[in-house]
């Protein structure tokens, strides 16, 4: 019973985040903007269409969107959301959590190479470069959390124990949250790293890899990326707003308000910043790396 509930929450609410980001950006630009539910309309529209496959592609190209969606949904099984416990926690699932996104990225890169287009190959190489830098930071943050809580299960690492160390190690949370936010922006191809709105520029990263997908497949990729945003965002909310022993309802409300504030903040970042030049992106991730490193040093220094 828990698993369908978890999946339905993720599936129902994840496109809303994109809608909030879109509305925020429109507000800053002084426009009315697309309706809040536009991502839902987009996904439904794409699901109703048929797919076109190039004759040079193989089954990998068709499998990629399904694998992406499946990986994102599976990772949501490990993530507690507000009052809801994670349905499938096990010892060391933190590696699976990171590995699932690695798998999704791997199959997307293969699919991009599968089309034989040099344009997509370029995007694939960029995606690989930046995500491997982001992954180091992600794991440093995981190490900090593991050291603080002495646990290796994701749902326990972000639970009660973490919230009790807020008072002793508040500074570490600041560093960890800051560096993880940069990872979040990188992983979800949001603005300082990648511009999700451009489709015809040589500078784009993630969007260039899905150029050849259409219809149902494109819908799955879009949906999968919103699920990824939701689950990775939920991790940040769980770190900054750890669950405590109050009623499920209050925790759920807190969780969803937190997610909306997160989407708002991403919209604000996207409105205030321009996309960074490609050679400046490693520098951004380097800042995230140094932040996480300092956090780790502080934790080690405190001997916790």
């Amino acid at each position, binding site marked *: 019973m828990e698993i369908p509930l978890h999946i339905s929450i993720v599936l129902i609410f994840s496109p809303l985040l994109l809608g909030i980001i879109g509305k925020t950006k429109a507000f800053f630009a002084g426009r009315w903007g697309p309706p809040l539910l536009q991502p839902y309309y987009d996904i439904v529209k794409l699901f109703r269409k048929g797919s076109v496959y190039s004759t040079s592609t193989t089954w990998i190209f068709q499998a990629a969107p399904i694998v992406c969606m499946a990986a994102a949904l599976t990772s949501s099984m490990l993530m507690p959301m507000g009052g809801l416990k994670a349905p499938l926690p096990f010892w060391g699932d933190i590696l699976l959590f990171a590995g699932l996104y690695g798998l999704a990225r791997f199959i997307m890169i293969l699919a991009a190479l599968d089309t034989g287009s040099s344009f997509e190959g370029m995007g694939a190489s960029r995606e690989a470069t930046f995500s491997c830098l982001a992954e180091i930071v992600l794991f440093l943050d995981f190490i900090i959390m593991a050291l603080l809580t002495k646990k290796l299960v994701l749902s326990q690492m972000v639970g009660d124990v973490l919230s009790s160390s807020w008072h002793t190690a508040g500074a570490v949370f600041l560093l960890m949250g800051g560096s993880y936010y940069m990872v979040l922006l990188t992983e979800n191809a949001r603005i300082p790293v990648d511009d999700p709105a451009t489709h015809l520029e040589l500078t784009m990263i993630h969007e260039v890899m899905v150029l050849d997908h259409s219809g149902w497949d494109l819908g799955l990729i879009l949906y999968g990326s919103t699920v990824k945003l939701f689950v990775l965002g939920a991790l940040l909310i769980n770190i900054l707003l750890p669950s405590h022993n109050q009623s499920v309802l209050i925790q759920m409300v807190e969780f969803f308000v937190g997610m909306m504030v997160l989407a708002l903040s991403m919209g604000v970042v996207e409105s205030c910043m321009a996309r960074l030049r490609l050679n400046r992106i490693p520098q951004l991730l380097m*800042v995230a*790396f140094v932040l996480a*490193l*300092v956090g780790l*040093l*502080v934790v080690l220094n405190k001997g916790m």
Partner: protein
Amino acid sequence: MLWLDLALISIVFLGIVILGNNRLRTTIQLFALQSFILSLVPLMVHPGVHAMILSVGTFILKVVIMPTLFFWAIRHVSIRREAQPLISYGKTLLLGGFLIGVAFLISSRLDLPDKGISNLLVPCAFSVIMIGFLLLVSRFKAITQIIGYLVMENGIFLFAQLLLEKTPLLVEMGILLDIFVGVLVMGIVVNHISQEFDSASTVNLINLRG
């Protein structure tokens, strides 16, 4: 204690951001912000009249006067950004992370008589000193170098918080005055460099003739 830790970490954080920044205007603003947080630290360590005077003195000098002076200077010599640092930004950041690690290592070995305040104070002070030092050696523009020097001084100021109760106020005021005069002299030097060479890069000072 939580607030002191937060302040110390944000001082180191701002140091890291200064390292990775290439716009002079933003660098000065970041330095002012760092000094503002720094000026609050004495109040958290030893609340009292002594700390109050020190805090206000630091605030006036480092948050108000010096940034104003810098803004005046960059308007005067019209430079906007550090075009070519000696070590590229990415490498500087990585080196900065390494140096912070070294700072934590050193301070864990250091045998201090008094560890009562916060066990983050000494490592953070060392880290900020290291960051300032790195900024000083890795940049060519005179103004960035002065900011590097001041960031280093911020670290020394942090370190001096350990001895806040024991140091006479006169000594601290003397130090602040020294720094102010130092920066003033450096400002004049920058002005002269830019008048002589049409740029504020210290590379020009390597040659014997202009």
